[in-house]
């Protein structure tokens, strides 16, 4: 039975809009041109591959459903807690909780414990983990070999998978360009293609291999260790991908209509419309962001507590809080875009072709939609891509002051927040922080690189600097 969360629905709506935009832009030469430039940029396409890998995890984690099970009498029942397709795929990870901390690839717990032996004697020692490395007879001597063997087998599978993907891709290219197979392959291998396929395929190889190796290893070990209550950190980091993506994308999606509409209106109509809109955004802008967010989040918490019956399940609440956070982040962020759009529209409305359209009697709205909107859209795209990484980073900071996502939502911010205390331990528990750092860093870095390329391609003023 599918479960619909607000953020899921909006996220898919966003993906659908993106797809629609692509289809629309396909046969418009002037819209395609800048994207063509993106497609030929190496670092842009490499980071796109990485971003798509994150997106895959995120999308899988957005498909929620209530799992069915047979009760004692054989009737079909649904559980009250919804899980996602991603959860279902990684059931082995999420259910194998240890008691508390354990280091990456550990077979023994991180802290010593009072262990009762079979012969009745009691010892103070590092107990074996329940799952991590549990298949080993003698971890000290066997572990390294086992890890290497498992990793190799994972790498092999990854290579196979990658080859399959390559075959499909090359097949498509062959059909598109009507070239013989061998020519096509050679061109890719020699990096003589317009789109940097070779670099992309190498990135894909790394991603696929890493995924397969980690998948194989994580069945036997906790590859990134476990946290305070024994949950697998690797699993948590993966779950956090969805939160990061949702915050990074939905926020812009929510603010976009306001910014677009108000920015264009202010720039086009000027006069009192402009005054009112400027007043609104200066007011909002002048309130320190964090305070506005804090106030709004507190407000929402109180609202939820007072209308408890409408938010029965914890997951639903967490989801709504996430959505609300996106909303409020959007409110604090639309002003920048709005101002840019206003300035651009101000410039555009004086352009000759607009004046000509006016003289020809084209309606106000016609001009806005037909002539202004398409010509400011590059600003929107640039802002959206640039904002994405800033938003992912902002989430962590907000969670640190407890005005971010719900504490029960897996997110990198929450991971960092709880990991702060672990830094004071001796020996230090470094893996949660490191895991959050690695994942966040990879996503943000890829997004930053991609955003740079998009900006260079779309911004007409940048032509000069593009060397």
């Amino acid at each position, binding site marked *: 039975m599918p479960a619909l969360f607000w953020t899921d629905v909006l996220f898919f709506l966003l993906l659908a809009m993106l797809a629609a935009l692509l289809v629309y832009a396909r046969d418009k030469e002037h819209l395609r041109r800048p994207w063509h430039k993106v497609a030929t940029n190496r670092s842009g396409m490499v980071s796109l591959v990485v971003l798509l890998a994150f997106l895959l995890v995120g999308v899988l984690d957005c498909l929620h459903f209530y799992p069915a099970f047979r009760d004692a009498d054989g009737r079909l029942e649904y559980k009250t807690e919804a899980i996602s397709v991603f959860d279902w795929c990684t059931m082995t990870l999420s259910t194998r909780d240890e008691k508390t901390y354990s280091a990456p690839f550990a077979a023994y717990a991180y802290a010593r414990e009072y262990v009762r032996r079979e012969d009745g004697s009691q010892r103070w020692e590092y107990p074996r983990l329940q799952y991590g490395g549990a298949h080993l007879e003698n971890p000290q001597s066997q572990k390294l070999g086992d890890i290497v063997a498992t990793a190799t087998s994972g790498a092999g599978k990854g290579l196979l998978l990658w080859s399959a993907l390559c075959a499909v891709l090359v097949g498509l290219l062959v059909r598109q360009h009507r070239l013989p197979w061998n020519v096509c392959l050679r061109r890719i291998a020699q990096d003589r293609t317009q789109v940097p396929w070779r670099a992309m395929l190498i990135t894909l190889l790394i991603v696929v291999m890493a995924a397969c190796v980690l998948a194989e290893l994580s069945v036997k070990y906790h590859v990134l260790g476990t946290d305070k209550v024994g949950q697998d950190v690797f699993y948590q980091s993966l779950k956090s991908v969805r939160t990061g993506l949702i915050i990074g994308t939905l926020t812009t999606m929510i603010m976009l209509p306001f910014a677009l509409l108000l920015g264009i209106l202010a720039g086009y109509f000027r006069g009192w419309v402009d005054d009112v809109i400027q007043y609104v955004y200066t007011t909002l802008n002048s309130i320190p962001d964090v*305070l506005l967010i804090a*106030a709004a989040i507190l407000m929402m918490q109180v609202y939820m507590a007072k209308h408890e019956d409408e938010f029965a399940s914890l997951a639903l609440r967490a989801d709504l809080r996430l959505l609300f956070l996106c909303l409020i982040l959007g409110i604090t962020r639309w002003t920048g875009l709005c101002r840019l759009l206003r300035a651009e529209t101000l410039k555009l409305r004086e352009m000759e072709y607009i004046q000509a359209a006016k003289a020809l009697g084209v309606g106000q709205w016609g001009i806005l939609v037909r002539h202004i909107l398409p010509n400011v859209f590059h600003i929107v795209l640039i802002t959206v891509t640039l904002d994405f990484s800033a938003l992912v980073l902002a989430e962590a900071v907000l969670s*640190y*002051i407890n005005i971010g996502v719900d504490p029960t939502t897996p997110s990198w911010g929450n991971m*960092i927040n709880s990991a702060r205390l672990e830094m004071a331990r001796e020996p230090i528990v470094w893996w949660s922080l490191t895991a959050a750092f690695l994942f966040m*860093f990879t996503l943000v870095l890829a997004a930053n690189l991609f955003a740079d390329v998009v900006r260079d391609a779309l911004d007409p003023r940048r032509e000069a600097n593009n060397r």
Partner: protein
Amino acid sequence: MMQYVVRRILYAVPLLLGVNVLTFVLFFIVNSPDDMARMNLGQKHVTPEAIEKWKRERGYDRPLFWNERSPGAAKLTDTIFYDKSVGLFLLRFGRSDNGRNIGADIRQRMWPSLAIAAPALLVGLLVHVSLALMLVFFRLTYLEFWGVALCVVLMSISSLFYIIGGQFVVGKLLQWVPISGYDTGLEAIKFIILPILISVAAGIGSGVRWYRTLFLEEVEKDYVRTARAKGLTEPRVLFTHVLKNAMIPILTGVVVILPQLFMGSLILESFFSIPGLGSYTIDAISQQDFAIVRAMVFLGSALYILGLLLTDISYTLVDPRVRLS
């Protein structure tokens, strides 16, 4: 000029009023005075009578916006909104929910915030601008490529990692400075040096990139070409012409944030227990002391608007072509 400034200041009034109404609505719609009373009266033996008494004493027993029972103009003035927001315009912040004078607290706490924010801004400006100049100097070499790449990498690291990492390495492992705390006078240096370094380091990525684009725009301009054609050396071109001309956007960018230095940094201050306005705000948020939060929102907005005004004025000062109208 004078007239312009006066007009801008008058224009700030509706802005601040808007801010005030917004925050007031945000806080009071959901947080009834009853909630505030309970929050402040503690956990044990809280009776309804005690709550009533608290509200009466703090002036929270009146209606929010409109008092039916009062005569004439008092219908508007004898309300919580009037009582709690008019004072803000006169910079009278009133008492916090737990009874302290907010104005006195703010006056006391803005200095530590400034002690960190101002040097951080200056040092940051110096470091970021000189690194950016270096990158521009080495443009079209592998150094520029790797420099820019490094900037993107540094940008992609959450500021939390800079703080946690810096505190861990310098404070705990190397034991160079006290881990946290604050003191007045010269003693303060050992406490603020690490936060300043961290905030400069955390800003390198985005700062250097930003200044680099500014310089690159200048470098392409005709006068630079002319200067180069005259036979000036590249460093001279960069330092005398490019830097001088790029100073306008740099300075105006700095001026707009100058007033907000007082507000301090929320996270840095709470990590290093620096008794500035940033940690004051965080405390207020976590204790849900709305009187303080409201005061800080107002202060922040006022300083922001002041920053905008200063920017406009500084434009005219550095660039005589700009006329204020």
